[in-house]
């Protein structure tokens, strides 16, 4: 504990905490909607796409990878959303193609053209997150904080509309709500969150941040507002505990945060069983 407090006296450690908590918070807010709309698979697919985009950015030696990764992921998010609305079977297959394809092409490019001496290490950290969140740079954290605040603001401001569109899109549309716009906003926010979360936990683990808090809180709570608030709390707690542990025991950040989320999920499931 004393050790941790010592660490916290360094500004970059504090920044890492702020960024981690904000990313986890955003993912969990959106996660409830994605899980309930049966869209969580889109989040998973997008994270693979983001990996591919990251590889392209690395090969082209673009200094700020965000500039490539963000637009590519956003375009794919919009595309996937359109596909999933038009027809489920095709939407599902095109998602699988896109996500596996992005992984393969990404890895191939990295292997063939990367100038880095440690390709395996690079790939591993893009997939599973950097071994230490402390390597996050100042600009990354600034972007992360600004984006998170925008996402949280949008979520609070659109809360009632998001609820209506999530619960019953047909009804919302029938009462004159432009559901397309809200679906588009949800897709955009998902893409942004996935790209941000990649910095923290790596491409393969982002969907864990999105899905676990929502699933845990849905075990115990039954109103939409309670579920949202509970998943936000779970996400923040898991991020704080996970990052602390990863600093203390020098474990990989992403995996540690996800494991804490799994533990919380198991505890909540046990409580639900106990309540009968």
């Amino acid at each position: 504990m004393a050790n941790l407090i010592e660490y916290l006296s360094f500004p970059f450690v504090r920044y890492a905490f702020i960024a981690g908590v904000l990313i986890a918070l955003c993912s969990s807010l959106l996660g409830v909607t994605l899980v309930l709309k049966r869209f969580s698979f889109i989040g998973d697919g997008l994270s693979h796409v983001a990996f591919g985009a990251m590889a392209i950015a690395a090969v082209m030696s673009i200094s700020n990878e965000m500039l490539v990764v963000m637009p590519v992921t956003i375009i794919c998010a919009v595309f996937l959303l359109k596909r999933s609305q038009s027809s489920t079977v095709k939407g599902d297959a095109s998602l699988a193609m896109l996500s596996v394809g992005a992984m393969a092409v990404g890895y191939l490019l990295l292997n063939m053209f990367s100038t880095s001496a440690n390709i395996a290490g690079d790939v591993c950290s893009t997939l599973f997150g950097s071994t230490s969140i402390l390597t996050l740079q100042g600009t990354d954290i600034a972007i992360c904080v600004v984006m998170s605040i925008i996402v949280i603001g949008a979520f609070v401001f659109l809360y009632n509309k998001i609820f209506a569109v999530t619960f019953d899109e047909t009804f919302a549309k029938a009462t004159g709500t432009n559901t397309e716009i809200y679906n588009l906003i949800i897709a955009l926010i998902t893409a942004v969150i996935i790209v941000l979360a990649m910095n923290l936990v790596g491409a393969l683990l982002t969907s864990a941040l999105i899905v676990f808090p929502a699933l845990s809180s849905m075990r115990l709570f039954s109103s939409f507002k309670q579920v949202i608030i509970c998943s936000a709390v779970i996400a923040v707690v898991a991020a704080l505990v996970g990052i602390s542990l990863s600093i203390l025991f020098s474990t990989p950040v992403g995996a540690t945060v996800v494991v804490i989320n799994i533990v919380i999920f198991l505890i909540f499931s046990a409580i639900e069983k106990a309540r009968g």
Partner: protein
Amino acid sequence: MSQLICKNLNVGYEDGVVASGIDFAVESGDYLCIVGENGSGKTTLMKTILGLTPPLSGEIYFEDGLSSKSIGYLPQQTLVQKDFPASVFEIVLSGCLSKLGRRPFYSKEDKALALEKMQKLGIENLTSKSYRNLSGGQQQRVLLARALCAAEKMLLLDEPTAGLDPAATNEMYDYIKKLNDEGMTIIMITHDLEESAKYATKTLNMGKDGVCHG
């Protein structure tokens, strides 16, 4: 006074016409029952009236200051909702969605309206209950209360008694009749020919001629 007129309407989807030559008019205070076989296009017609699918040809007019925004709609139940974590009040209140406009949050009046509609349907004691733990009949009443929040003059009901036991079915029909007596125009899809004969002022038989029988 006429509220809704459909003239020579053809409804369907990109891949083809589902029902054609639909002609009818709905007056204020009418109780219109739409009957017909499975797949005859009843739901499609209702979605076309609501503007959820564009008409393939023909015309739909709203009069009496009505628009598809001021119509309450009770959809045929969808799968997503069955295990959705939401309280009854949250769901009923979402019926006020069209009143929100650009505002982010519901006003006191919106909440009072939602409560009033719940009292009307006898579900005010369920306010903070979870939707997924309710019986089918209760769930249907919650969705009716939500539709009432949006309905100013007209209510569209798509098989409101599907899956209900006889007692709950009768109760549902009584509530709908009561609303109709208070001046609400009702358009209801049903497979229950007996009920439709008892209460309806007009019947639209889909799949045959698409003409309205008064």
